[in-house]
């Protein structure tokens, strides 16, 4: 049997028996993707229910205009509770008991009767998101009422109702990708998949060489007739497998959650899941060189470090370098950069962008080729670097 495979098999066996590594390869990716689905599912389904939240109102005198508006709010799904005064409303907003309070005063009916505008004061804490959502619903209800009032006026003046909106945009969506995925998933999933490709391997990297130095087991390997290059590559491929398995775990979790068809996840999957078999294959092809690059760089760091502690310090710093382009992939859709091929020249970000595009069913062949090509070159350079470090005489006792 090839000695490199012997080393690979031994490393895989040890990794799979290590709880920490199993957690980074399977539990972590599965849990984080699952948690993301659950949190976003809950958030999205609660946004739908936001109209059912309670708003407060100060109503000194009930009249037709006030009651009509309150009815419109209740029709929109809101519950309206009365408060005695503005001072009381402000105090309760400060305490967090009230999110938004409308002060109807006494002039609404009179103003509307004499065709004069009326401003309805709304008291709220601007840092409270739910208050902002409630304000949006109120403004929507008010806009519907405005339309009714203005169309009555237009009728009296014999003006065409269509002139209520003299200018408007007519949306004509052009379908670019084959499929659709929720916008939040498109932003978050590439980040999670790339991050787990790194963390899946990072958990065992420090142990693999620096740990062996510390325990002095590395010496027994170096004294064996196996070439150091084969030992280094055996370890490197094992680490790349760990990285790949972590990625596969996170992708598999996406499909599991999609197939569960849970009620609270419906808002997330109302456009379906953009990821199909082609998408998965594209993601895996783009990630192979990335995982090899991660594994090679991690082995090099572990070979350079004197002990596991030193290795972990370097690895923690290295993880920041991986996180930054991965994090940028979350907001790339808001920039013109997403359309530029330059993205595919930036390691890590290019893989994240290929994943992002695969989620919306877009396959840019040149971009995918650039990602795979640049990733392969980087992986080969990092591999050569790690083998070189492993071949150094000072690997056992760097001064």
């Amino acid at each position, binding site marked *: 049997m090839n000695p490199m495979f*012997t*080393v690979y098999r031994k490393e895989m066996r040890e990794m799979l028996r290590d709880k920490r590594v199993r957690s980074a390869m399977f539990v972590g990716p599965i849990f984080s993707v699952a948690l993301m689905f659950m949190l976003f599912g809950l958030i999205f389904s609660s946004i739908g229910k936001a109209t059912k939240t309670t708003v407060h109102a100060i109503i000194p005198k009930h009249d037709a205009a006030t009651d009509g508006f309150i009815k419109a709010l209740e029709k929109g799904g809101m519950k309206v509770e009365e408060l005695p005064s503005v001072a009381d409303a402000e105090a309760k907003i400060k305490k967090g008991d009230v999110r938004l309070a409308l002060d109807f005063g006494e002039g609404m009916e009179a103003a509307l009767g004499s065709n004069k505008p009326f401003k309805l004061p709304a008291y709220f804490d601007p840092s409270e998101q739910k208050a902002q959502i409630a304000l949006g619903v109120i403004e929507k209800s008010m806009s519907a009422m405005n339309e009714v009032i203005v169309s009555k006026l237009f009728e009296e003046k014999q003006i065409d109702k269509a002139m209520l909106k003299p200018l408007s945009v007519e949306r004509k969506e052009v379908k670019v990708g084959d499929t659709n995925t929720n916008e939040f998933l498109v932003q978050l999933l590439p980040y999670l998949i790339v991050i787990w490709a790194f963390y899946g391997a990072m958990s065992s990297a420090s142990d693999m060489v620096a740990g062996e130095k510390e325990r*002095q*087991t590395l*010496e*027994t390997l170096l*004294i*064996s*007739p196996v*070439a150091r290059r084969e030992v280094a590559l055996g370890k490197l491929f094992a680490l790349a497998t760990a990285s790949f398995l972590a990625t596969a775990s996170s992708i598999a979790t996406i499909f599991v959650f999609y197939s569960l068809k849970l009620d609270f996840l419906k808002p997330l999957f109302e456009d379906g899941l953009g990821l199909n078999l082609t998408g998965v294959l594209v993601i895996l092809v783009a990630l192979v060189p990335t995982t090899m690059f991660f594994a090679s760089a991690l082995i090099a760091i572990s070979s350079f470090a004197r002990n596991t502690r030193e290795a972990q310090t370097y690895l923690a710093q290295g993880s920041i370098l991986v996180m930054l382009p991965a994090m940028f992939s979350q907001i790339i859709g808001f920039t013109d950069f997403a359309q530029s091929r330059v993205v595919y020249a930036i390691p890590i970000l290019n893989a994240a962008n290929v994943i992002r595009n695969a989620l919306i069913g877009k396959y840019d062949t040149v971009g995918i080729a650039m990602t795979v090509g640049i990733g392969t070159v980087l992986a080969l350079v990092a591999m050569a670097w790690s083998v070189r470090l492993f071949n150094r005489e000072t690997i056992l006792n760097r001064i």
Partner: protein
Amino acid sequence: MVRTDSLSKHFFDPKRGDVRAVEDATFEARPGQIVGLLGKNGAGKSTLLRMLSTVLTPSSGQAWVNDYDIVKEPTEVRRSIGFMSSSTALYGRMSPREILAYFGELYGLQGATLKSKVDDLISRLDIGSYADGLCDKLSTGQKQRVNIARTLIHDPQVLFFDEPTSGLDVVMSQDVMRFVEEERERGKTIIYCTHIMSEVERLCDHIICIHDGELKGQGSIEALKALTGENSLEKAFLNVVGYNREVMA
């Protein structure tokens, strides 16, 4: 057979400058012989063994292990040697049987040959009762037995022992020494590094005293005693390395 000719190892330490870890070491160890490498901590014993194991490249000089040149034929040298140190750990998440099979495969053993070799060592070193449990759960003594088995898996002609009894209790130390003696009887060439005089007196046929990287004297125990005029090996060693003179000065 191990033979060295003016073997030296120098390296640069940013704090200490140019360090001469081993200087002009010339000696010979023959099959069926235990050669004791005697010296205090940091004397250069481990550096010398690491050069002979091809982990370190000599700065100058030559050496042959089992008639293979350590610089020109490192793979053949590594195939011929077994190395054991008390500080070498085992893979905690593997069983002794798995570790033996792993190293056996690295040394080119396969199939039935590998299995029979592993079974033989498990039986010979009395590892059977814990051969399939994880090494993390083993006692120090049990781990050391597995370490010995690992060293012997490919039946090497030359054995290097680097302070193999350090940290072991009296009973286990006796076991280790018994295995070393058994291997001598099998005609192996053995280099045994230690600073424990009683072990040297029991095991070694030939002694090399090393101090600050230089071989200060070598010969049989009796020859060293006669050379220094001392009646104990400890005093003879201190005399050879110049410790008495340093104290007097």
